[in-house]
């Protein structure tokens, strides 16, 4: 049975079995490869998307939970890469390898939606769901602080 939901504002229907993780539908069927497979267990944050406006691990979300839901991926965060966080990530030259950064940006965007002026501690606490092996953490914090100033 097809599952109807919305991705980046577009109505979408998936024939994938209900137990399929959302991650594979996004990456394989919709070819939106900005969302990454990192661990498959919700421990790294590379697969982070928004579902109905809140961040969620797409590797831990089954398609059966997606009926009528609205998903935003990194590709849909802004129409033209102009989200304040994307601009701040560029200004601070955050990424090294960059593999975790889509997930980092999606987590940060979730924070700013709930709390447009977070403290440094609130930023760091919120972002603890997302790990980065290259060690770009302080640039991520700086970029989020910049986005809160420039938004």
């Amino acid at each position: 049975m097809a599952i109807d939901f919305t991705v980046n504002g577009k109505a979408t229907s998936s024939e994938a079995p209900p137990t399929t993780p959302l991650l594979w539908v996004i990456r394989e069927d919709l070819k939106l490869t900005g969302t990454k497979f990192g661990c498959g267990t919700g421990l790294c944050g590379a697969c982070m998307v928004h579902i109905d406006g809140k961040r969620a691990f797409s590797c831990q979300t089954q398609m059966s939970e997606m009926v009528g839901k609205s998903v935003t991926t990194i590709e849909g965060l802004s129409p033209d890469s102009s989200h304040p966080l994307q601009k701040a990530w560029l200004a601070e030259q955050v990424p090294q390898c960059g593999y975790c950064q889509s997930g980092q940006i999606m987590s940060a965007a979730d924070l700013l939606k709930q709390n447009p002026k977070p403290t440094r501690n609130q930023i760091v606490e919120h972002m603890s769901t997302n790990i980065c092996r290259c060690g770009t953490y302080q640039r991520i914090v700086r970029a989020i602080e910049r986005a809160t100033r420039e938004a």
Partner: protein
Amino acid sequence: MNAAAFNRRQFTAGLGAVVVAFSLGPELARGQERLPGGLQNNRRLDAWIRINADGGATVFTGKVELGQGVLTALAQIAAEELDLPLSRIEMVSGDTGRTPDEGHTSGSVSIESSGTALRMAAAEVHSILLDLAANRLGTSPSDLTVASGVIAAPDGRKIGYGELVAALDLKREATAKVRPKAASNYKVVGQAVQRLDIPAKVTGGAAYVQDIRLPGMLHGRAVRPPRYGAKLESFDEVAARAMPGIVAIVRDGSFLGVIAEREEQAIKARAALSEGAKWSGGTELPDPEREYDHLLSLRSVDTVASEKQASPAPSGARVVEATYRKPYLAHASMGPSCALAEFRAGRFTIWSHTQGVFPLRLDLAKSLQVEPAAIRCIFAEGAGCYGRNGHDDVALDAALLARALPGRPVRVQWMRDDEFAWEPYGPAMVMKAQAAVADGRIVDWQYELWSGPHGVRPGVPDGSNLFASWSLDQPQKRPFARNIPLPAGGSDRNAIPGYDLPNHRIVNHFIPEMPIWVSSLRTLGGYANVFAVESFMDELASAAGVDPVAFRLAHLTDPRARAVIEAVAKKTGWKTGETGDGARGRGIAFARYKTLATYVAVVAEVEIDRASGMVHVPRATAAVDAGLIINPDGLTNQIEGGIVQSVSWTLKEEVRFDRRGILSRDWASYPILTMPEAPTVEVELINRPNERPLGAGEASQGPAAAAVANAFANATGKRIRDLPLNPARVKAALG
């Protein structure tokens, strides 16, 4: 000091075989002049640079982007010498069909080797273009000026590079006789330009190897044995074939893999095949409780890395001994290793995030029993690898699967547990130091280290270093592991301190065969050796009753080494003789990476929660001299990231195993530093415009580790010599 007792006699006992260093570079052909950097092995100008009809340039490099920003730095160098804006440079990197063979991208040498080649080649191409223009304009090259790829004569006539393309012949050997620009004239080099790879990385547009989607592509997964060397006896093919989407099941010896239409179908089939597979034999691992004793008992090839005896130590000198230990560390890439392969008309095309497309091709050719010319390896950026992780091995997985379905590309990405359990780790190491101090000086220094190989990569003559190839129907030989020769060194990298030590002996016990699969992790032996040497320097300073900064400076004459220590001490307001308060403290450490490259001094602060045993590093400050700086922000980013990764290694990381196999298989069993745990890092750069530019990707990890250990000792008066400084060790140390 709790060091295991050892004296000079034991220290030298068992020394015998001395390995002759072998050359990694090809033999220099007779009559050829030595050319600088990477030009030596790829001598033609058109191997590096092509001027396009639109007046821009295409630059070819064998070095690859691993997230370190190297392609941007190389593009800056080429743009500078060609007088082109950075936006007119197209970079082509790591492709056996198109680029020069520059071996592996490793050891922080890309800027030195590829950068030097490009600087010299671009300067020469620039000069040839000027000659052509001068000829056409009937003037002298020295009268011409160039801006943004447009050459102008004094009378105002102009010629663009594009107009000269038809007459330009770069199919010639570089002479390296054209002087590149003086650093004082640089406009692009030295600027913190935005990295070329970053825009796509913040919009989901980056095409990592993990994201390549080819027409008709299928998804594969390999089924790994439960332990090293196990033989596949049987598996349940019928059950797996009945699963949805299965296209093929491939077995070759003990290699077992599955190909499916969709990725999640391949993942499920892998789990089912794994469940039903029967394995026999395999290697038992050492008892983890006695891991380091076992390490010392393994057969080693022993060499004296450096020895100097000026005068015997004076009587009454104070003798200090200490033993330091470093566990196996994982690369732990965020993105599990991935490759794509296509087998069509007898030829393979492989997309891989290998650090060396040419060496990988050699091992693939042996494993697949085809000629190297039948394989094209194309580099595609992947998640950061920090050395030789699974990137090479997954390429063979993909090729073995693709061979079963000619014409259909197969993509293989390892699962998280494969990535942790089957990557070759940075080896465990033991370092024993003994020294004597008198009147504030080190009068004798004895140091020996035990380590497995760090450079186990594809491309060596006597076998294949792709692990699946060892258990195929027609297995490949596992090559004899060799140490990377000094001065850069492998296991003995940075074992020779940069200090003035008139009496010293440094011995490397190189262990070719380790019970656990190991290879190159960022810094190779440098991290553990600098941790040991610089921890020991603080122990000696303490024994001599001298401040750690003053003690180091007293043993250093190299002005660049002194400058980074003095700079970091000044920046952090270091106070002579400062001590911590039981819960807080600061430590300093220094190293010149590989003893011949970038200088880094680090001051780290620690906060210790004595109840939980948790150590936190709130701040680290570094002073860095990497010679001529190409891109200051890229350099800073590498130092920041290197320190954060090192703090993670130093406080948290250790590959866990028992006798039956590897236990670290996910982020819960191999945790790394998270954002709340990460230090704030401040970096001061010392630019040396007249010195050669040096790499920085591996320069800060060793000093950061020792600075943390020294800060802990400064705070608590207790010394931890076994890595990592985890809560159990902290609580034991604090009693």
